[in-house]
């Protein structure tokens, strides 16, 4: 059901854990739907110097978190914000349809962490970050819209 690449990232995920000196933290998803991603960023001079994640969820949720951290580490903020769920899926060699929402969650987790960074800098995030959904609210969560009935 999963590609070798997904299984690689699931078995040995990159950048797992917390970042004590993170200056941008984002959390999306909710436990009711079965997946929560928390992303920790250390941003310096406009560059993602370090990144960690913690994920509660299925194999795909863990793999998308892992690859997303790899794709943004060492990159400018703009690149992190440009990370799309499609790229995440492509880099993993594909995801089952029912698991595509995990890639969206990974994209949203990065955006949520960058938004938090901007807020801490006293900058209005919406000036830079487009379409960060409030993933923590149950109604907004993507799993409810795609076949999963979370009510």
């Amino acid at each position, binding site marked *: 059901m*999963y590609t070798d690449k997904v*299984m690689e990232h*699931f*078995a040995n*995920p990159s950048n*797992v*854990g917390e970042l004590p000196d993170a200056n941008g933290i984002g*959390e999306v998803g909710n*436990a*009711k*739907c*079965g*997946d*929560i*991603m*928390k992303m920790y960023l250390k941003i310096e001079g406009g560059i993602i110097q370090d990144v960690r994640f*913690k*994920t*509660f*969820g*299925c*194999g795909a*949720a*863990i793999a998308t978190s892992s690859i997303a951290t790899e794709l943004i580490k060492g990159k400018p903020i703009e690149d992190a914000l440009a990370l799309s769920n499609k790229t995440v899926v492509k880099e993993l060699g594909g995801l*089952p*349809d*029912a698991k595509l*929402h995990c890639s969206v969650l990974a994209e949203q987790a990065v955006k949520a962490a960058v938004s938090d960074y901007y807020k801490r800098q006293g900058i209005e995030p919406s000036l830079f970050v487009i379409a960060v959904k409030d993933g923590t609210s149950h109604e907004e969560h993507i*799993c409810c819209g*795609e*076949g*999963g*009935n*979370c009510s």
Partner: protein
Amino acid sequence: MSKANKTVYLDNAATTKMSGAVLKAVMPYITESYGNPSSIYEMGQRNRRAITKAREQVAAALNCPPAEIYFTASGTESNNWALHNSRRVITSEFEHHAILHAVKGDVTLLPVYDNGIVKVEDLEKALEENPDTDLVTVMAVNNEIATIQPIAEIGALIADWNKKNAEAGRGQCLFHTDAVQAIGNIPIDVQAMNIDLLSISAHKLHGMKGVGALYVRKGVNLPPFILGGGQERGFRAGTENVAGIVGFGVAIEEAVRDIEKKNAELIKKRERIYNDVMKIKRVRLNGDLEKRLCGSLNFSFEGIEGEALLLQLNMKDIAASSGSACTSGSLEPSHVLLALGLPHEIAHGSLRISMSRNTTDEEIDYFLEHLPPIVEKLREMSPVWED
């Protein structure tokens, strides 16, 4: 710690390994004896006789006359057929989807409470509130949490209820049970238990996939399910799965033999697993500890998700399953665990362990060695877990 270089298989509620005796019995029928049982020549008639023998074996296991056994292609088909003629049904919240997705008309769902067992009083009340009920269907053993339902008591209640129905000039209420998970694991006697309809499946008891049976008590008015060439006395058409049916006969005979002896072995293994797994922090057993199959357990681990747990176990060649519907592509956790009143986040992190007579102590050792570090690893990764 070694494991015999093969999968540690702890998913016998999903399906089982075909037994050696079954394989031996079916071989002639998947090779040389390929005749159609409806044909008049010897190869056909030989296969007809083989089916007759299997029907006797299945009937003996359930304590009914062979004429009350109809072979089908699966437990699901048997369940669908049993529901086919009913319009006012009482069932439980945590039936298999082969019941819940197939039931028609007005349906009353009985609660199963946090121990996962239907209460006979609830059924009595539901019957009084719905006196026109024409079918009660309650599974003998739940497929996810393995709790045993009070089938004999339900059968007795419905038998009494039908006396009242007769006095009141109302139609009779039938009692169906999905015994797919029960047969071979607990004794089933359709006469003593007042069962009218009962579904079973061969591959759950070391037979072949693709064959099931429905017991239909004589006098029950159940219309044919599949129309065609008149097989199964006109009630279930289609050329018979001769090999599967022959294997079913052998498998069920083996499965109901020495149930108590087999269960005495299984319960020792189950207790070892239970005692060890419960040492893990914030874990709960789903379903009653006592009224359950001797070889099955279902746990929820706080802070982790079931599919991730299964994938990690699979990386160690351990085959188990989860109540998490994530594995089947849906994002909703198991309806069974939700029916027990578990919150979604706990229901997402469940693990079903189901053994069979093939399960060895070495397999249990191996599983118990690998489970705790896997749970710990996933919890370390989890943002919702705090020590």
